[in-house]
């Protein structure tokens, strides 16, 4: 049975009528054509589908769309402000932390959630937190450096 939900996606109000048991991932990609959020496993094991729901990192592949009624969803497409990249996006570029880039949106969303709650995480915190996400290409080192870089920038902003 279809139900009608309203949610905010990347700052825009959306009304969606669909089967509430569909995955949020599919609704984002198929109904809203927001394909930046990726499928990697469908089992909450790889983090490719990570989005922010009310500011928290969530695996959209195991999130029924019916559970996100009246929430605020942010996907990788919603991070930049016009032409200005989010600091985490900029840090991934600056560190060259991208190879095929397929894991990148999920990595970035996960890192954004981390830095929003802990602007200056230790290396072990970063590794433990980012361990939820799999990259098959790049050996993680440059991704770690990107998260460190974004955190450093946080520090520069908050500590004059």
């Amino acid at each position: 049975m279809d139900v009608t939900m309203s949610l905010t996606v990347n700052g825009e109000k959306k009304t969606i009528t669909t089967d509430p048991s569909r995955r949020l991932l599919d609704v984002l990609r198929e109904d809203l054509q927001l394909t930046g959020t990726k499928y990697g496993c469908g089992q909450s094991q790889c983090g490719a589908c990570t989005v922010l729901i009310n500011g928290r990192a969530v695996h959209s592949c195991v999130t029924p769309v019916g559970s996100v009624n009246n929430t605020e969803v942010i996907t990788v497409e919603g991070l930049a402000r016009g032409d200005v990249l989010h600091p985490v996006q900029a840090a991934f570029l600056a560190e060259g932390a991208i190879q095929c880039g397929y894991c990148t949106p999920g990595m970035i969303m996960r890192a954004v959630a981390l830095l929003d709650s802990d602007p200056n995480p230790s290396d072990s915190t970063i590794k433990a937190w980012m361990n939820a996400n799999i990259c098959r290409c790049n050996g993680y080192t440059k991704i770690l450096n990107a998260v460190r870089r974004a955190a450093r920038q946080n520090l520069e902003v908050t500590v004059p």
Partner: protein
Amino acid sequence: MTRESLIDDVFELEQDETQALWTHEFDLTRRTFLQVLGAGLLITVTQDMTQAQSGRTMPVIARLHLNTDGTVTVLTGKVEEGQGSRAELSQAAAEELRVSVGQVRLIMADTDLVPDDGITAGSRTTPYNVPPVRQAAATARELLTNLAARQWQVNAETLEVLNGKITHTATGKTLTYGDLAALDTTSEVFKGSIRSDVTLTPLGQWKTMGTSVPRPNSRDLVTGAHHYPSDQIRPGMLYGKVLRPPSYGATLEAIDLGAAQAMKDVFVLHEGQFVGFAAPTTFLATRALEAAAQTAQWKTVPQVSSRDLFSHLKKNKQTGGRSRPRTTGDVDKALSEASQVLNETYEVAYVQHTPMEPRAATAEWTDGKLTVWTGVDSPQRVQGDLAREFGVSNDKVRLIVPDMGGGFGGKHSGEAAEEAARLSKACARPVAVHWTREEEFTWAYFRPAAVIECRAGLDDTGSLTAWDFTSINPGSSGIDPPYGIANMSILSAGTDSPLRQGAYRCLAATANNFARESFIDELSVAAKADPLAFRLAHLNNPRIRTVLEAAARHFDWGNRRKKITRELGVGLACGTEKNSVVAACVEILIDRKTGQIRVVEVCEAFECGPIVNPDNLTSQIQGCICMGLGPALREAMVFEDGRILSNSFYTYQVPRFADIPKLDIHLVENRDIPSAGGGETPIIAIAPAIGNAVFAATGIRLRSMPLQSDKLKA
């Protein structure tokens, strides 16, 4: 593709690896070019003209176009899957054209537009595709310079080209590539052949090549704007699902499709063994599939299980024909005269590539022509496969490979493309087929498992005198030892592979190097020699010697060896493949309660000739090391009666952040040879170095990958 043809693929790949592969089936119509490139493209090529071209020459225009905005469009059949070909080929063109990388627009892997550059595999882009792109660009620059010289009635040698601008210094006259794009004469001269003898920019004068140019479309990757094969959406598109057998070799006997057919908006296709579903959402297509799958009756056939894998491979070893050893000297005699003979067998499990983007395709039929967007390494080959499958000519199939989400040798075949095309044809709508992770684990092909039998003899001075190496199943890459041994017998033997197998990053070289470098370590112990000294004493490859010495020096091998405990080990390994050389030293820690091995540090030195893009090369090495840790420590396909039990990231654990060792990477540059590819060989030294470190700490020799043993608990 059948299991057999994929096995052939393995051999074919290895045999092809030394050949430059491009054939000449391009079909560039003005219409398609204008559609894709849009306004500003003033140079077009007619079909007549390209068809008139045959043999080994290609017109400049098949490779390169000038645009009136001053940019240059470069065409290649190569695929970008994260290995860095987009940056590298853009650099190659920019270098010879004397423009910035930002002025190059690289169109990759669209069979309607690009020349056939062969499959993206075997580290071939650097040695075999960078040179033709450079030749095309250098020829174009020469032609344009001559054109300007003619126009100004001056000697071409007095002209300079910089940043896409041709200047005659004496008169101050200039012409930009954009100006030249507007001239009809330019399109005429670009019909000229690319000259393979054109002078290329010498190494010492490289401006763009040799620098760390970032991937040109990387911004789109961090914003989510790039559309991967699985992100292609067409108007009116449906999402497809395909019924899979419950086990290898099972055949469908009966199925009740009533429930699926009764679902609103669901399309069902049943043709022989193919049962597919298409619906407006993945959710609905999956529901239809599940409803039908419940009713399916299958006939299964006995299959080999992973617990019997190695005995099965051995038992079915082929002899004769292709499986005859290559010999030098007299191994049997040397072994009988040796003062010590060692005889050991090594094993390597099947592993899966698990690129983060599983197989995906979107197919669309318009007026009898099929267009497919998919992630494959071999666009023209899959184009041909599809044409045959659907009984149309090649020009009725357009295959486009958008930059895709990883491959590692695992995407040579076009299964999803075929499935999507089939469903799309039947339901007359565009259809996307996205494999699930479970499908990718189960139905994509695997890296071959291996059984490798090694015998060697040492004389009383501790020198190697005999080497007998039989590698069953993985293939022959990396099979030759880089050590000087007078008597050798080397065999790459086929067998019956229970699973569908195919290429993988560095393919057989990982298995062959694991066996060889572990065995060499065992021989060094038997010879009472330091593993480094033993290798150096036997190495007859000066390039390996250089990287081995570099890795050992940076790692401080001698002193680190002294710090070995029963928990902490150090080990090393080296090797060569695809004309590049690698050596790695590792430090590991073993938890003697759980038997778990943790790799603490990897110091790797790598050399692949002149470095085209240092940052990208570093990424490739980091990626190889990390990827190599998986099959070294944990990854192995477990299967039973034809069912793949390792079918998720729960049951098949790839490396994660927590696994990253300290990485100390050294790029050794060798400017005396042409550049070789660097995206594969760095993987081959990891597993044996870890195994050797485990032995150094525990005295326990692990001869089966992944390296796991209860014996380590003590």
